[in-house]
């Protein structure tokens, strides 16, 4: 049988639609690829998958009876890693789950279960990092604005946290790597696209856009950050392990004065 390479639109529903297709046609030699990642797979025939919510929901419902809730969220987290080839690990995991009558999500001696758990863990770590490292800056029109550049696509995962926490202020978190953001208008969170002025520098706080107060509080925070450090315990290795350098550029306390 000819090997197949299924191409989906990059959404989670799209991926689940592809999985549906694999089960429906009982495909054996198959890979799944995001349309943006598409590389030709040797000796494979490409096939485009249409995203269909009903099919996606059927797969998800099936998984509900096969996996614990931990297993399902690990699956979703791993998906958001956007790692090349992760779809094939997810597919193998799903096939393994459907082949057994007991939940397999804790069978860490199975390679795909382990890989999925490890990937989910990385994504989870990035989610926590973003919950920690988002630095809101108050704009002139009273929106608390933050830009991020996470390693993985974690915006969908952090939405709930920020909505619950900052219920009484307007805020926006924008992923400048993936070109979309979340905006909370005191009622609901919306997914938004934004055009930024061409001279907009994400690492700087420009008085053209940000409120006057903003500069004072950034300064106070920087002072605080310095004063709370104990010089005789200095341990930069540990410091960098906790706050890897790639995150520094958007941290208010790490800005040059």
């Amino acid at each position, binding site marked *: 049988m000819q090997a197949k390479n299924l191409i989906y639109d990059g959404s989670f529903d799209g991926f689940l639609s592809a999985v549906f297709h694999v089960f429906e046609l009982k495909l054996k030699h198959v890979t799944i690829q995001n349309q943006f990642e598409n590389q030709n797979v040797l000796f494979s025939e490409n096939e485009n998958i249409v995203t269909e919510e009903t099919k996606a929901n059927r797969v998800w419902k099936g998984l509900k009876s096969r996996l614990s809730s931990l297993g399902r969220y690990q699956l979703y987290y791993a998906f958001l890693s956007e790692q090349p080839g992760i779809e094939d690990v997810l597919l193998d995991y799903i096939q393994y789950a459907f082949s057994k009558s007991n939940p397999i999500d804790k069978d860490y001696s199975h390679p795909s279960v382990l890989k999925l758990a490890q990937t989910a863990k990385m994504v989870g770590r990035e989610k926590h990092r973003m919950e920690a490292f988002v630095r809101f800056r108050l704009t002139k029109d009273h929106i608390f604005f933050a830009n991020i550049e996470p390693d993985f696509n974690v915006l969908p995962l952090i939405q709930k946290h920020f909505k619950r926490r900052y219920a009484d202020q307007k805020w926006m978190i924008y992923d400048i790597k993936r070109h979309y953001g979340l905006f909370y208008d005191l009622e609901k969170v919306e997914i938004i696209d934004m055009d930024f002025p061409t001279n907009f520098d994400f690492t700087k706080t420009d008085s053209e856009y940000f409120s006057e107060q903003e500069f004072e509080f950034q300064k*106070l925070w920087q002072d605080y950050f310095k004063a709370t450090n104990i010089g005789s315990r200095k341990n930069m290795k540990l410091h960098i392990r906790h706050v890897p350098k790639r995150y520094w550029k958007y941290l208010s306390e790490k800005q040059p004065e």
Partner: protein
Amino acid sequence: MSFQRTQEKLKILADAAKYDVSCSSSGSNRFNTTKGLGDATGMGICHSYTEDGRCVSLLKILLTNYCIFDCAYCVTRKSNDIKRAAFKVQEVVDLTINFYRRNYIEGLFLSSGIFKSADYTMERLVAVAKKLRLEENFNGYIHLKSIPGASDELMREAGLYADRLSVNIEIPTESGLKKLAPDKKREDFIKPMVKVKNEIIQYKAEKKIIKSTPKYAPAGQSTQMIIGASGENDFQIMQTSNFFYKNYNLKRVYYSGYVPISYDNRLPQIGTAVPMLRENRLYQTDWLMRFYGFDVSEILNEQHQHLDLDIDPKLGWALRNLHEFPVDVNTADKRMLARIPGLGMKSVHKIINARRFRRLNWEHLKKIGVALNRAQYFIICDSNQFEKRDLTSEKIKGLILQNSTSKYRKSLSNQLSLFG
């Protein structure tokens, strides 16, 4: 808020507060149900880390560093020649709210030097917390210091607004306290601790009957001890720790390696290294006590009063108790798995889950994340390769040290050279 004045005060009062390490923001359960600002549920977040590698999760400041006491180990002591400052209640509220809104912090950790009297000071700490909760509708984390000697009435009020209350016993033994802080008494620390403990118990009981009973210090109480200021050994420290855990239902005891700040000859001199490795060993012991099912006397006792610096306390225990090993990871119960060197509780749970599917061998254990360089001498698994030599404790220790690159190796050799 005058920016410059606040800036000046913040520098002084954050600097003075930095030696208190009990700044966790976890363990509360305050939800944002009012569409107000913030919540304090579940694990606290470390929003940043200082250059010394410690978590920054709370705005940790003193309300004032004026103090009528003269505790030798404290920078804020009366006789110390330093700049003094005092925040107004509103300034602390503004800083907290504005830092919180920018996602810098999880909340406030407010302590204070004692000015005028214990009650006068405690009253102001409570006023900050009350304002944050009632006027600003703030649901973030608030940790207040209980001022030794504060009245029961104030402590009761404090718990209604704070998530956590703590009073630092600082010096692990009463004789040490007498020497370094002659005007302080153990009873003064214990009094607010007892009050808070009793209130927590009472509020919890009422909550079971009347749902609308307000929360009282939902993240409980903690305390801190300074390590290496007054000559106590590890056995004495952990006995005190155990005593406070058991008698006052403490959530945490913190151990803070003494940072020399004075030329007072009762104390280690300025320039003496902070005993960070020892501090780490004490924390490990604390964890073994709280999460690994160890009784403190198994690790420290009359015969064994010092923790090893070169190996962790669990490995130390295992080497003294070789008759308990090897343990078969495929059959052992949880209690015994937790006692194997090189296995954290996470690995223990993973093993228990994974072995229901198949018998585990070395490869599985490695993938699960077991530190085999330590564990291999203490376990058998689904493999006929295991340590068959009849090794002595000394020999095993030598083999393990040979193959480990301890992150403390450097500070260890520094500390050892002190005796060499």
